[in-house]
């Protein structure tokens, strides 16, 4: 029997009346990779924030190596050998790797002896675990994958025995994920303990030896990874069985209805983000855009939907030019022409979180009948409509008067989707439709998109989730550094092939 290095007993934590963690009991064994899986909002991050000392539990106890400890701040946790790599990195961009790592632990006023020693120690660590990092490089020059390594190195340097990683692969290419997993395995071999928080089943199956599943603040199951499979885990997460593959009919391709020619787009800082992009979408087709975040997908979608000005080139809808460097139709005019847009960032763009649900359900269509007549809003019609679509799209709770921020991510996304699909658009631009959405809702959203395609809509789907691109698209293009670097018909394409394109290697 291996003794647990970390033991949580009856941890409870609530925020106001929301209980984020209920009676959590968890044992993590030394020298293992332990997965914690659950949907968004299941309480994974809260639990780990308690372990890292960011939050204090309302009740319960934490033992490390069999000893009761109190963790009042991250500093306590670091002293006790716990390190955490957050989803969003905590690095000073214009400092070097070395400066970032010793930040707060300099140990002397003027850099000298200890500084040199730190450098030597870090070099050794890098070699042991094959980090392949230049300690004098500036953070802003490093790719996301390397920045993550800096975070890991920082924790190790501070003496972490237990390393917590919160959704570490969200921003990485498949190749970077491979590299990360290699590092994690070698850490495990050196006797470190790793806790991996994720909502991706495949990572759990690949990497962990034990897994705990969380649902609605509780741990609903512990198991050895060898004794389970993806379907079982998904069922535990959601509380019912789910379809992991999308049912899709053969494509019935129509004419080209949306055309983009030599399009270039600049961002707010005047940097060209989309470079000479050409694409065509036919009715009844889903064109997927794969790519690591920040390679121009955002700006491309914004330009296509009339939010951002085109630098050069043009966009055609049904053979009519809707946008070039001189003119562009605004989003409302485009809606009138049958182009709808589900934006990739629903908090920033798709919704007004302080508005009530019914106000968001008509957003962008608010000046059309029956929602308003001679500029006066018709609340009765709006409420009637809201009740209807909220039922159709299974938005929970079904309360049009509730402030939108009180809905979960998945339900907010359904609000947007119902609004954009309701008018049966001919062209649909979709960005990250399932980011931060729970598995149950993902299934629903995917089905709706397929239905739209089968009804003859031309759909452009940008997503950083390769699984999503692969399971929905008929054709896939890959964007890297603002350019289209590859196009594949979605038959026997593997995520490896796409991954190489996404990294700009192939």
């Amino acid at each position, binding site marked *: 029997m291996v003794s647990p290095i970390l033991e949580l007993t009856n941890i409870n934590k609530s*925020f*106001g*009346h*929301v209980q984020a963690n209920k009676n959590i009991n968890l044992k993590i064994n030394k020298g293992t990779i332990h997965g914690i899986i659950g949907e968004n909002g299941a309480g994974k991050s809260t639990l780990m924030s308690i372990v890292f000392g960011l939050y204090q539990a309302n009740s319960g106890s934490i033992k490390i190596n069999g000893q009761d400890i109190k963790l009042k701040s991250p500093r306590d946790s670091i002293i006790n050998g716990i390190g955490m790599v957050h989803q969003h990195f905590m690095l000073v961009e214009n400092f070097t790797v070395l400066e970032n790592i010793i930040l707060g632990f300099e140990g002397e006023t003027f850099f000298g002896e200890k500084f040199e020693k730190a450098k030597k120690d870090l070099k050794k660590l890098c070699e042991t675990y094959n980090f392949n990092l230049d300690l004098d490089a500036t953070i802003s020059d490093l790719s996301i994958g390397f920045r993550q390594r800096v975070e890991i190195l920082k924790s190790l340097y501070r003496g972490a025995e237990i390393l917590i990683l919160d959704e570490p692969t969200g921003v990485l290419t498949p190749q970077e994920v491979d590299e990360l997993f290699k590092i994690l395995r070698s850490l495990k071999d050196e006797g470190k303990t790793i806790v991996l928080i994720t909502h991706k089943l495949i990572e759990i199956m690949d990497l962990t030896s034990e897994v705990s599943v969380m649902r609605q603040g509780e741990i609903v199951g512990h198991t050895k990874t060898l004794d389970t499979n993806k379907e079982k885990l998904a069922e535990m997460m959601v509380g019912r069985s789910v379809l992991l593959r999308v049912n899709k009919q053969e494509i019935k391709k129509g004419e080209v209805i949306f055309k983009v020619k030599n399009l270039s787009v600049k961002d707010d800082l005047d940097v060209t983000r989309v470079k000479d992009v050409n694409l065509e979408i036919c009715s009844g087709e889903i064109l997927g855009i794969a790519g690591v975040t920040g390679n121009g997908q955002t700006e491309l979608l914004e330009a296509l*939907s*009339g*939010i951002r000005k085109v630098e050069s080139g043009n966009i055609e809808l049904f053979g009519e030019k809707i946008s070039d460097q001189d003119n562009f139709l*605004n*989003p*409302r*005019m*485009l*809606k009138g022409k049958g182009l709808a*847009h589900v*934006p990739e960032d629903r908090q*920033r*763009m*798709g*919704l*007004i*979180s*302080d*508005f009530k649900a019914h*106000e968001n359900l008509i*957003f*962008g269509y*608010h*000046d059309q009948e029956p929602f*308003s007549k001679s*500029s*006066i*809003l018709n*609340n009765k019609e709006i409420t009637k409509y809201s009740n209807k679509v909220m039922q159709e799209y299974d938005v929970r709770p079904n309360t049009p008067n*509730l*402030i939108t921020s*009180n809905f979960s991510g998945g339900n907010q996304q359904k609000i947007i989707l119902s609004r954009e699909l309701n008018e049966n658009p001919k062209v649909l631009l979709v960005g990250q439709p399932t980011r931060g959405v729970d598995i149950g809702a993902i299934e629903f959203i995917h089905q709706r998109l397929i239905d739209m395609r089968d009804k003859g809509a031309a759909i452009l789907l940008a997503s950083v989730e390769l699984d999503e691109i692969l399971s929905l698209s008929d054709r896939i293009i890959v964007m890297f550094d603002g350019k289209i670097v590859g196009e594949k018909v979605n038959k026997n394409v593997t995520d490896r092939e796409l991954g190489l394109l996404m990294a700009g290697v192939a």
Partner: protein
Amino acid sequence: MSNIVVDKSKVPWWVSNVIVPLVNLTLALLVSGLFIFIAGENPIKAVKLIIYGSFGYIQGFAYTLYYTTNFIFTGLAFAVAFHCRLFNIGGEGQAYLGGLGVFLVAINLSFLPVPIVWLLAIFGAFLFGAAWAYIPAYLQSKRGSHVVITTIMFNFIASSLMIFLLVDVIRDTNQMAPHTVKLPKEIWLPSFEAFSGIFGIKIRYSPLNLTFLLAIASLFFVWFLVWKTKWGYEMRAVGHNTQAAIYAGISPHKNIIIAMCISGGLAGLLGVNEILGVNHKIQAGFPAGYGFTGIAVALMGRNHPIGILPAAFLFGILYQGGSEVTFEMPNITRYMFVAVQGLIILFSGALENLFRPQIESFFVRRLSKEVNV
């Protein structure tokens, strides 16, 4: 620091909109009482004087309502801009210019039938106030110059401009003081005592006049505009999330300008009360701080007409009752009541959320217990 997180959806509306402001107000008044005590007077006696001064006799009450009228206009002005997340600090200047609008219309068109002169004068007040707000609005929407800075500067510009006009252009040349001639008596708005005279009740002079009803109508107008029309909807959308507004094809530029112009126009209506209702001429500095106090009124009233009405009334009471106190208590100066106002602004504006989490979580706990029993 407090770390209380309250589930907002469980907080009843009356807790956040009634109880919290009342607690803040009480605190402000308690601290004010302490000041009065330190100044060597009896706070309880001061409260009695305030209540007597503002409610105790009919003339005093009329004064209270007269002040309330001004505060409704300036409070609504701030609130409308705030729904588009614009801090219009320029109510003072916009009101000043609004007065000019009233005067110019009334004096030049006084040959028209009286009700038409009134309507046109009201329109003139709105238009001039709106025009004065338009410039900062334009600078904000096209150039990104922050409206807080520009509207403050525009208060000073308005003041200088009006002094220039009152000294050199529109001064009543039969005398030396910086004010205009009086408007012809026929077009003055009927005063409260004229009204009550019809019913055979005789009251001594008070500045309360027909404009009070215009203020009440403005409350309805703002409520309807902000919550019932597509313009209000779009203004709020731009205010809450500009990115989302652009996504939905709503123009932030247009809405910033519309919101500021309506805001400035409402502030301008203060001119109707002061020029057409009370003074019948433009005097230097007639907005007398109402524009600034309107900010506090709007903050206390949570930018909603239903809240602005009682908040404006409260400040009316303080103004009228306060002058009664300074009259009776030699140790309390006029500036003391400026301090009291300051405390109210401090507690209901700047420190608005000081006790909010505690109060809300208290009620949420209380109410959920009741449900469980």
